[in-house]
């Protein structure tokens, strides 16, 4: 029963860079239609985990199943087809600075889904409206936008192709608390509207409480706790307790970066 609703499953995923072990056997399940947030300190392997699922990094070992298919074994066209299921909001936005806003949003539609530019433009402007940006913004270049607006454009690009799975990499980093909350609400709304599965990484606890259905904590390259967001405050795990309360003293050392 559980197997049928599992969208993403990581089994014993390992990754190292030279002699630096980053992932030491990550096990994680993300249920279909749920929003899973991975929390953890800097350098604990959050981004590497996400990049391994996306295929931007190749895992050294283990299995990463998306819809029951091991994505580590996919190459070439099959990998590109698999990518069409994904949408991604990057930490820094990663907008193409040579293209206007609407072309950034429409990029996956034009080049990935082979839509005409006119059709893609209409959808891009709809998606921009969905994230609270008017048509006037569509002709601007990314450099002409504020940080918050860039994040919105990046979110619009992530949802433009109506992906099954959306990844959020530190979605509120660098934003003021009000803008961060706006982005969190947009993420919840967009994921709900699309009925998508979401996998996010963050160390912003306000963001976690807003967007997560389930939470997993990564520490020293392993998932050490996972559970519903409602259980986060009484997890019974000293590492989780220390992290969510932001205490300097506790089992997590001050120099835990791997």
């Amino acid at each position: 029963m559980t197997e049928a609703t599992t969208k993403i499953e990581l089994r014993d995923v390992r990754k190292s860079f030279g002699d630096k072990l980053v992932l030491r056997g990550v096990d994680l399940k993300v249920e279909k239609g749920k929003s899973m947030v991975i929390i953890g300190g800097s350098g604990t392997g959050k981004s590497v985990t996400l990049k391994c699922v996306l295929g931007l990094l190749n895992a050294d070992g283990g299995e990463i199943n998306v819809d029951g298919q091991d994505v580590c074994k996919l190459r070439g066209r099959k990998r590109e087809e698999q990518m069409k299921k994904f949408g991604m909001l990057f930490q820094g936005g990663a907008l193409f600075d040579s293209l206007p806003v609407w072309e950034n949003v429409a990029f996956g539609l034009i080049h990935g889904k082979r839509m005409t530019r006119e059709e893609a433009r209409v959808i891009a402007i709809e998606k921009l409206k969905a994230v609270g940006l008017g048509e006037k913004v569509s002709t601007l270049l990314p450099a002409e936008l504020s940080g918050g607006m860039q994040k919105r454009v990046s979110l619009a690009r992530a949802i433009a192709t109506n992906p099954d799975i959306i990844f959020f990499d530190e979605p509120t980093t660098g934003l003021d608390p009000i803008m961060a909350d706006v982005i969190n609400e947009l993420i919840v709304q967009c994921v709900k509207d699309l009925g998508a599965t979401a996998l996010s990484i963050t160390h912003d606890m306000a963001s976690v409480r807003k967007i997560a259905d389930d939470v997993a904590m990564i520490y020293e390259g392993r998932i050490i706790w996972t559970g519903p967001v409602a259980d986060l405050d009484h997890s019974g795990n000293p590492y989780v307790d220390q992290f969510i309360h932001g205490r300097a003293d506790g089992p997590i050392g001050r120099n835990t970066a791997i």
Partner: protein
Amino acid sequence: MSDFKSASLETARHISGRALDLCAMIGHSVMQFFGSVGRLTEFAGKAVAHVFMPPWFFKQMGRQFVDIGYYSLAVVGLTALFSGMVLALQSYTGFSRFNAEGAIANVVALSITRELAPVLAGLMVAGRIGASIAAEIGTMRVTEQIDALTTLSVNPMKYLVVPRVFAGTVIMPFLVLVADIIGIFGGFIVAVFKLGFGPYTYIEQTWNFLEWNDVASGLVKAAVFGFIVTLMGCYNGYNSARGAQGVGAATTNAVVSASILILIFNYLLTQMFFS
């Protein structure tokens, strides 16, 4: 006696330790060199393979033709013009020592078409285009734009590398053809207006002396140099390290490696064509 023996043993151990360190350092450098050559060859192979596999990004390709070809015309043209002028002047002062001033037109035409136009154009384009490609792609790497391309189901090799390498390889021969004409014209200006040669005689001499393979060999060199410049720009940018320093290093490496490879391949191609 035993003190002397132990001191000798210690010295021998010290020397062998240093020798081993030296061997390890040389071995590491050799491994790194061959590793780099291997990675570059793999990258070049992928770039060439993707040229023949759809989808093709024609808009990107068009932009590169304009950037590499049209916008390099001025710098390549000026380089060729002054090289031709200097060549005529130098040949005159040199050849007049044994009364061979009449060969100036031939020397200018041969030097420009076979060597100077392709090599100087290659080096100028390496400075202008190789650096800009490495900086642009390197910045895209650092700001995760290349990762974003992948997540949007677009292969970065096809979108970023193929248009640049293809445009560079195809447009360079045209640039060099223009440089040939301007370079010969530079020699003509000096010969006619400064050294007192007859204009018709100079043109006739150039035309009669030049053979098609003089020009063709220069154009083949140009295509190879165009490939080298754009490939090195793309390779260094694509593998740029993080941060501003990484992009800076990628840009420097792109220009230096392309310039050195141009000089090496110039020798190899010259030997292949004329030996």
